[in-house]
């Protein structure tokens, strides 16, 4: 279906939200109209273009995304529109950012672990600029997103990106942030056992904490906390006593995940201590082992 004109492109996109060529037609159309506004040399031509062309276009993308929440080219189109606006020298207001966040949230509600939507959400936080208060607000908001999305790896990865962004602006907060993050992820694992997503987030927090402060690799208390946590989560007897149905489904996963974290963090620690280590796996149905060279 060739999309030669902007109306045909709109129709094609309603049938296939990831029709990349149709989005290109829409861009040519928006770009063309932009030139008219700007060439008119009236003051505020760029702002008018944003209000009269870009805003409706963003609304149209949202309309398409209600059916195609994952389509990468739709998200790329949103980014092009916003980036083009900024290149025209138009400042994006808070309402625009909020609109984008809402678009992400709507898409994530429709399609879990929506890679493109979570990436877009992180991009928005990035372009909001170096306002550590705004990023701190985003960091706080990501906590409830994480709680709601304990099986959504995109949600926890998004949180890690906001943490990184926050620490770019406030690097001295690193120790506090990662201490808190490790407590937070332990709390989530206790509440929601058997979720690989949470255990992966534990790896992230542990590895980043050690990367930023190598002394932690020899800090007995720090290491013991993780070891004890793995021990606790491996002890399925107690957890099964509390909830036998859980034991039937999540217990084996939890045991395996706790073991994996134990070995994985050992790898990180040994490397941080400057030791040469390698990973092996005896058979694909067994765990990994870390051996010194």
């Amino acid at each position, binding site marked *: 279906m*060739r999309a030669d004109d902007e109306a045909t492109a709109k129709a094609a996109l309603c049938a296939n939200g990831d029709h990349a060529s149709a989005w290109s037609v829409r861009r040519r159309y928006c770009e063309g109209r932009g030139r008219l506004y700007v060439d008119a040399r009236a003051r505020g031509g760029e702002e008018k273009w944003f209000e009269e062309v870009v805003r409706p276009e963003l609304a149209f993308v949202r309309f398409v995304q209600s059916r195609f929440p994952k389509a990468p080219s739709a998200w790329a189109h949103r980014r092009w529109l916003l980036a083009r606006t900024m290149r025209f020298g138009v400042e994006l207001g808070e309402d625009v950012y909020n609109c984008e966040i809402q678009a992400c949230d709507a898409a994530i509600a429709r399609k879990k672990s929506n*890679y493109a939507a979570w990436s877009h959400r992180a991009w928005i936080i990035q372009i909001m600029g170096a306002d550590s208060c705004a990023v701190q607000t985003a960091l706080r908001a990501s906590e409830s997103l994480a709680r709601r999305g304990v099986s959504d790896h995109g949600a926890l990865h998004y949180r890690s*990106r906001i943490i990184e962004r926050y620490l770019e602006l406030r690097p001295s907060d690193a120790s506090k942030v990662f201490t808190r993050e490790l407590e937070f992820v332990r709390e989530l694992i206790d509440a929601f056992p058997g979720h690989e997503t949470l255990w992966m987030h534990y790896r992230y927090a542990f590895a980043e904490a050690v*990367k930023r402060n190598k002394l932690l690799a020899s800090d007995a208390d720090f290491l013991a906390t993780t070891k004890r946590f793995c021990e606790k989560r491996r002890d399925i007897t107690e957890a099964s006593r509390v909830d036998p149905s859980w034991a039937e489904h999540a217990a084996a996963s939890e045991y395996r995940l706790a073991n994996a974290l134990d070995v994985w963090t050992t790898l990180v620690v040994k490397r941080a201590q400057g030791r040469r280590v*390698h990973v092996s796996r005896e058979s694909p149905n067994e765990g990994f082992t870390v051996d010194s060279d």
Partner: protein
Amino acid sequence: MSAAKEFELPSMPTLCVDEHCAFVARASESADTLEHALTEHLRLSGIYWGVCAVYTLGRLDRTFDRAKKEEILSYVDSCRNENGSYGGGVGHDGHVLYTLSAVQIYALFDELSRIDVEAVVGFLSSMQLSNGSFQGDHWGEIDTRFTYCALSALRLLGRLDAVDVDKACAYINSCKNFDGGFGAEPGGESHAGQVFTCVGALAIGGRLDYVDGDLLGWWLAERQVKVGGLNGRPEKLPDVCYSWWVLSSLSVLGKTHWIDRAALARFILKCQDEKSGGISDRPDDEPDVYHTFFGIAGLALMGHPAVVEPIDPVFALPKSVLRRMGIELSGTGKG
């Protein structure tokens, strides 16, 4: 190869070679469906998936006679744009994704002489940005997939000299995460598809030293779920296409033995439509050419006896095609 013995197990379903070739042949004829029209923008990739699937099954000439072959090649020719790029379909804008697909199709049919190499090289090199990354087209979207497409196409054409390979690889390295995986952009979540493209790009660029083999191998091996299939990220459902993205990366790292290959093979074979042919993303879903190709390619990497043409894990092309082009094959590591 020890993997081949696993296919002799009595419980292993048969690979329905005839049916899959018939499925691909039918897919190339169905120009009157809505689905066909709505996917026109990626037709070239569809052609690559179909042709390569059939090639690896050793049935290229049986499935596409000379007339059909010329029809396909003429179609690819007509997707060429003035700036040297290829669009996904006739009249569609050029993009690095479809430029690679075009080069791959010409390579499969041994018709590289149909390419205006300088024009293609000109387009691809113009897509590299100052930080080493590649945009997909002039609209500016950047994704590590596009680096792979550009480097692969340039290598196939013998023109890697046209871009800054060091910078391209350094940019890929900047997309590496704490877990050894790679995302679509710096800070992007590790995703098996992106891992394939990043590892592939680094292999082509000669910078596999950027890869943390132990960490990444671990992450890749953890993509295997209980039913034997592979997923692309934690807690996602298994999908046949990851049989390729994950397995090819493990192959480059020399760590395919870190997953249960028999279980994976069984999963792929269960995703076949044994009556009408084709392979789907998971059992009992609708098959499509994309999953048909990647399922067969995954089986090729595991040495399935019916997949007669071994496939290269970096270029996703049969090794015999690469040898014919004089391209030195990627090693599969120490394992």
